[in-house]
């Protein structure tokens, strides 16, 4: 057990090293340097470009740049090239903004998908199953940004609910209760939108998994014992159907840092996804690479968590 843990951590560190090299190379291979971001600007003289290149160590060989970057990252001294603020501080601030969106969205996704998927599977080909199937494919097919605008129009014109940003401008002056309500309202639409796509896809997976398990011999055995259909489905079948989702549960960790670019952009939500997007446009290498590195760490941590969880829930897997 401990040996497995140690071995897997070492493996993951090696993987992380390769990820860091590859992502560093990809960023540097991409056309456009931060120093050339605005070549048509008349104030941008060749001397300034030269000075910037020197300042950002862009004139040094790639492997030196690599070492300098990761040294700064691990010392926590890494700063953004746009505003000279510490990158980790920036990320933390944006992370806290994205967190409520992520938590509410994920909770909605998982709490809705499972009951819907399970019920569809049990009542296969019934009205409930057919309508959820139709709805799922509808939601999968509608582009997220399009659906978002339809919802915004509806919600703003009919319900008069504020939707843009994290809070209404100037609400800071109001009482705490008003602020909390305002924030909650702002949170509703983006999280629902974030969850719809997830629900549509995940409920399909749950249904498929559940259907496969219901056809298994041991489910028939459970029925032959005279168990009620609730016990058959929710104890014998569900426990087996859930196994693959334990793996998925570990893999939602990276979502913590990824955020959602589209939803955050539409709703002007100052979150992680938007920051990453803006950093890419601005060739802000330190921010891009730090987010990249942290995401890689979370992906690897997620797989480790999945492995450990799998061991807990599936008695056949022992290390």
């Amino acid at each position, binding site marked *: 057990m401990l040996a497995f843990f140690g071995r897997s951590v070492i493996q993951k560190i090696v993987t992380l090293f390769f990820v860091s090299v590859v992502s560093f190379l990809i960023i540097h291979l991409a056309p456009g340097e931060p120093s050339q971001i605005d070549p048509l600007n008349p104030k941008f003289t060749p001397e300034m470009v030269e000075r910037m290149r020197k300042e950002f160590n862009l004139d040094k060989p790639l492997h030196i740049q690599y070492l300098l970057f990761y040294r700064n990252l691990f010392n926590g001294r890494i700063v953004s090239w746009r505003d000279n603020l510490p990158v980790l501080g920036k990320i933390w601030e944006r992370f806290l903004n994205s967190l409520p969106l992520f938590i509410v969205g994920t909770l909605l996704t998982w709490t809705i998908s499972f009951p819907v998927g399970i019920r569809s599977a049990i009542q296969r080909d019934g009205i409930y199953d057919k309508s959820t199937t139709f709805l799922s494919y509808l939601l999968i097919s509608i582009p997220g940004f399009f659906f978002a605008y339809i919802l915004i129009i509806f919600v703003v014109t009919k319900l008069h609910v504020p939707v843009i940003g994290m809070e209404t401008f100037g609400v800071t002056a109001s009482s705490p209760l008003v602020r909390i309500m305002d924030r909650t309202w702002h949170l509703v639409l983006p999280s629902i939108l974030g969850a719809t796509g997830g629900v549509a896809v995940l409920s399909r997976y749950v249904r498929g998994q559940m259907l496969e398990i219901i056809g*298994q*011999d*041991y489910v*028939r*055995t*459970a*029925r*032959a*014992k*005279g*168990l*009620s259909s609730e*016990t058959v489905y929710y104890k*014998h079948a569900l*426990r*087996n159907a859930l*196994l693959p989702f334990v793996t998925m549960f570990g893999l939602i960790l990276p979502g913590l840092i990824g955020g959602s670019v589209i939803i955050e952009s539409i709703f002007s939500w100052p979150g992680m996804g938007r920051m990453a997007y803006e950093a890419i446009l601005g060739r802000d290498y330190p921010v891009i690479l730090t987010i990249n590195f942290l995401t890689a760490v979370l992906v690897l941590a997620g797989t480790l968590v999945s492995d450990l969880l799998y061991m807990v*829930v*599936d*008695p*056949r897997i022992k290390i």
Partner: protein
Amino acid sequence: MNPEPHSDLLLSVKNLKVHFQGVGPVAKAVNGVDFKVRRRQTVCIVGESGCGKTVTALAILGLLKQPPAVIAGGEIFFDGLSLFDLPASQMRNLRGKRIAMVFQEPMTSLNPVFTIGDQVGEAVLVHEEVSDDQARRRTIQLLYDVGIVEPEKRLNDYPHQLSGGQRQRVMIAMALACEPDLIIADEPTTALDVTVQAQILRLLKRLKQDKEMAIQYITHDLGVVAAIADHVYVMYAGVVVEQGSADAIFSKARHPYTMALLDSLPTKEKRGQRLYSIPGSVPHPAYRPLGCPFHPRCRYCEPSCEKAFPDFFDYGKGHEARCPVLYKSGVGEKDR
């Protein structure tokens, strides 16, 4: 109504028809099957794969998936109760408590994520008002009865930690949990190797004696039939073609299909010879021939066989076969 209440008749299946409606023509998997199981009797249902044996068993327990399966006709009486008329809740109480089933595949019939103690204990707990501790002790006793060594320790094992034979023993323990009147064993030894098969058969025989149960044993293996059967039903293409005591079937078979099955058995006398096999294969349930379903493969086939499927001809002592050709001509065992 059950024609023989309070008799030793435990199960009677009458003219059972189970069809499968999918895409394309209706598959008549079971097409008018009659049989009886008496108390403390071991009844074997014999036939090739696809002749409707398992579907019949699942129909008795109400475990058929409907749809695609449709009960197209017939009745099943169990101890005076008409099973098709029972409400679902009563049917559930019957399952596991009075009729239990042992399935063919011990490898996949146990739930992989629960311990065997849980799964056997559950069968006790669902039908009887006992404490968890009592159920645990019953489970240990049951595992001991079916020959699991050191049951207290094996209780917490998961199915994957057991061998195939042990798993089938656990399945049998589960079936025995509430001391049912009838155990339906659907090819319980097919997936096991021969020595383990012999052990399981001995176990079933012993348990049947001890617990005074009836066993409906489904198999395609005539060797197994010879070892345990009191009464035998031979099924072909969804119908019973011959029935009789085990002695009658083995020594005086009166249906060409039964005779052909017996001929395909390897015996000491036939050592070194090429083994007989019945020409052709079992017709698909959706495309069965008119008349006697066996006629395309039958060596005694006459033109009349292609037109009508005859009823049973009585040979006395409960021995009946559905072949008019052999009945009239008197062709029997010694002429084969």
